[in-house]
């Protein structure tokens, strides 16, 4: 085994291909899943269309008007679809591996355990939301850049930073998820993983400005600095939806901090995962 180093990229591509073959074997089911994922998103857009009949923006003088907010929403769906495509099915599987003792097989493989746990299943149907997100993004950006007064001029730096921060956001979400999944080693089983995940990430779905009133400040601090899910969507959406020169210094500081938070989240979740594996006692006989 000495000197042997598996090609992580090749292994991942094999995983992705296998999943695609599997999805394509039940094609009707795959299409149904795509349709249901998309209709969920469309319904959500419908909700905000209703909301924007009654108001011009989310929060007073926050700058999140209808089209700006739809950029925000599109960013949410893009990040969500990435997480749900690549990580969600695996994290759910992880607690099942622990409960059934099948984690033994993953531990025996000559490849990093966190890698082999995090990537084996790719849920291609969930990627359909990426398409919806991207369409919504293009549509609202078109609306913003062509509006009569004060049209948005997209800076080339925004175009570079947007995908970068989408990546950061996805990594933060992944870290939160793998940490939650790792706790199932101690709890024995963690079927409510998805619920917890939903409750925590629920806070990331809205512009951070709405929390900055009264005791919401405490929430803002907690979900920005302790569990930084508020940065996930807010930073890339803010960079894309509104002109960069209107970004205040606090926002720039947060954008800097987001990079730091991404690295920290990844490292901390890795440590928790390794700690969890050490406490793992096989369940088989």
């Amino acid at each position: 085994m000495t000197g042997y180093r598996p090609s992580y990229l090749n292994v991942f591509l094999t995983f992705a291909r296998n999943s695609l073959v599997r999805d394509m074997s039940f094609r009707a089911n795959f299409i149904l899943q795509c349709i249901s994922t998309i209709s969920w998103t469309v319904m959500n857009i419908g909700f905000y269309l209703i909301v924007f009949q009654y108001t011009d923006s989310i929060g007073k003088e926050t700058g999140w008007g209808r089209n700006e907010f739809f950029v925000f929403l599109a960013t949410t769906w893009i990040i969500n679809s990435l997480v749900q495509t690549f990580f969600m099915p695996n994290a759910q599987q992880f607690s099942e591996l622990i409960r059934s003792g099948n984690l033994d097989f993953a531990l025996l493989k000559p490849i990093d355990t966190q890698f082999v746990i995090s990537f084996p299943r790719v849920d291609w149907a969930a990627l359909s939301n990426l398409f919806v997100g991207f369409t919504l993004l293009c549509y609202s950006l078109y609306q913003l850049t062509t509006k009569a007064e004060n049209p948005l001029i997209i800076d080339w730096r925004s175009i570079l930073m947007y995908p970068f921060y989408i990546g950061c956001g996805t990594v933060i979400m992944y870290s939160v998820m793998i940490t939650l999944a790792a706790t199932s080693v101690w709890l024995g089983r963690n079927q409510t993983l998805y619920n917890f995940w939903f409750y925590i990430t629920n806070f990331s779905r809205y512009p951070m400005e709405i929390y900055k009133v009264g005791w919401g400040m405490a929430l803002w601090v907690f979900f920005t600095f302790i569990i930084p899910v508020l940065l996930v969507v807010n930073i890339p959406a803010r960079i894309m939806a509104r002109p960069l020169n209107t970004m205040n210094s606090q926002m720039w500081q947060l954008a800097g901090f987001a990079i730091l938070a991404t690295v920290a989240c990844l490292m901390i979740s890795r440590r928790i995962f390794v700690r969890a594996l050490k406490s793992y006692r096989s369940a088989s006989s």
Partner: protein
Amino acid sequence: MATVASNQRGTGSRLKTWWTILKISLEERFVYRGDFALGTLMRFLPIITQVFLWYAIFAASGKEKIEAYTANGVVAYYMLTMISRAFSSMPGLCSGIALQVRDGEIKKYLIQPIDLLGFLLLTRIAHKLCYYVIALIPFTFVFFLCRGFFENGWPEASVLCAYFLSLIMGFLLGFFMEASLGLVSFWFLEVTSLAFVYNLLNFFLSGHMFPLDLLPDWAAQFINLLPFQYLAYYPAAIFQGTIEPNQVWQGMALEACWLMAFIMIARIMLNRGIHRYSGFGG
């Protein structure tokens, strides 16, 4: 004549059977009470984001009221729909029936003198009763903390009566709607995608996602005729007084019609389905 006599004897023993079923289901449910209470408390977390979202919307709109709601009123509405949903949601009912049809467990209702729908209804009542006993603590706690959102205080006694009636009817309507959906599995073995569509429509049309009054008039008029609103919106609207007291009973009458219709649909589907059904193996 013999059948009449056996029927009379039957009623007593049937009641006993039903009581036993209810008792067993209750005991089964109480096993995981701690987990249950905690899970219920967690379910209120998304309300927090709703509070901030709606306050932001109200602040930006510069209005005191959007349709019939103040900012506090919207939050109170979301909290009340949680109670409605505690009555009308039927987790696992549709998929449970589909599973029993698919793996043949349904046979037991054919050979034992128990009615499938009656049995499921009783286990569901037990499930719900248990849920209320345990969920009462987190619900009271959260509602006490959030009492400020209920600006109008308690409604009148007559409104409260209508409210409770609408909750119970919501429970029955939810049960028979979802049971009918599950019984479709006699015809199609796989109903998961159908159930997903149902849940999606339910979330939107029942008013679980937002108060239905916010919809444009033409849409609201149409949705008011559908049975979905009784699963979340209607009880909450009665409690908050968004529906005029003299119109409450009209809505309830429509609800009763829907309930009757779904009881009949479920019955007919069960009868037809069992005739189609063929059980193989031992």
